[in-house]
């Protein structure tokens, strides 16, 4: 249902530029998640899954270079810290843990959710910008980007 809402079009305000990290996440996820309605608490399965993601980010943060390779830029510790903050905000908003959480190869991190033929990604870029995108199979349905730097 959430993905269908995003596919059909965004209701995002375009003039207000969110500043704080929770505001930025809420702005990007607004077409997908109704933040004004209280969500049921996460199941224990999803709470455990979020903890696993946070533990993974923490492990990467101790040694970011494990993610670097020829021409592949690892996320910085700052980026991994930002990703942990984003993960905590999503978890605290009762959003299900992502199916995949991976480096983007260019100094950023991608959170990715899948449902049937739809793939929804939240990408944190090395320059601090954030982007959400929705794919239906291999077609890009829509995407939204916030270029301003987040304040943590």
């Amino acid at each position, binding site marked *: 249902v959430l993905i269908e809402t995003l596919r059909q079009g965004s209701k995002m305000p375009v003039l207000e530029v969110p500043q704080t990290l929770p505001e930025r996440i809420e702005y990007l996820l607004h077409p997908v998640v109704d933040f004004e309605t209280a969500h049921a608490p996460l199941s224990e399965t999803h709470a455990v899954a979020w903890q696993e993601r946070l533990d993974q980010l923490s492990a990467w943060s101790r040694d970011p270079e*494990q*993610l670097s*390779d*020829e*021409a*592949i*830029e690892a996320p910085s510790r700052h980026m991994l810290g930002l990703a942990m903050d984003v993960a905590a905000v999503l978890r605290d908003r009762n959003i299900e843990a992502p*199916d*995949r959480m*991976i*480096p*983007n*190869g*260019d100094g950023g991190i*991608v959170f*990715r959710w899948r449902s049937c033929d739809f*793939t929804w990604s939240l990408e944190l870029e090395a320059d601090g910008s954030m982007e959400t*995108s929705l*794919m239906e*199979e*291999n*077609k*890009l349905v829509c995407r939204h980007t916030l270029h301003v730097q987040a304040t943590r």
Partner: protein
Amino acid sequence: MADFDTIEPVDDGEILYRRIPVSTGWYQPDKQPPLEPEAFRPAQSDTSGISVSRAKYTSLEQAACGRPGKDYYVAVFHAGELRVAGLEVTAKPVEGNPGHAEIPSLRYENRKSRQAIEWRFLLAHRLCLRVEGPFHSPQK
């Protein structure tokens, strides 16, 4: 520098390899789908296209060889199927690697274009024939 008069074009029937570091998690055989499009995201150095290896000149083990001590998977493709999907494939031999080729359709400067994003998903979810490995790159 390659001798461009003698470069043999990539034939539609050729098999191509793309190296994927295990550490990135871009290929996880226990997940569905197992391969993520980030495996085909151009790096800053990919100004003329992402690199692939031609099976005609390169063994799987050679294609998988990366940083010493690290492990790599190898995604396998059919050149003709890439072209049918609209992706260019060009031979680009370099010193010591006559089997080097590039996909010029995927370059750093166009990495955020709609078409590039869709091609990356297509490569990961439709065009990849299989993934081999992991292979260990020996310490030198």
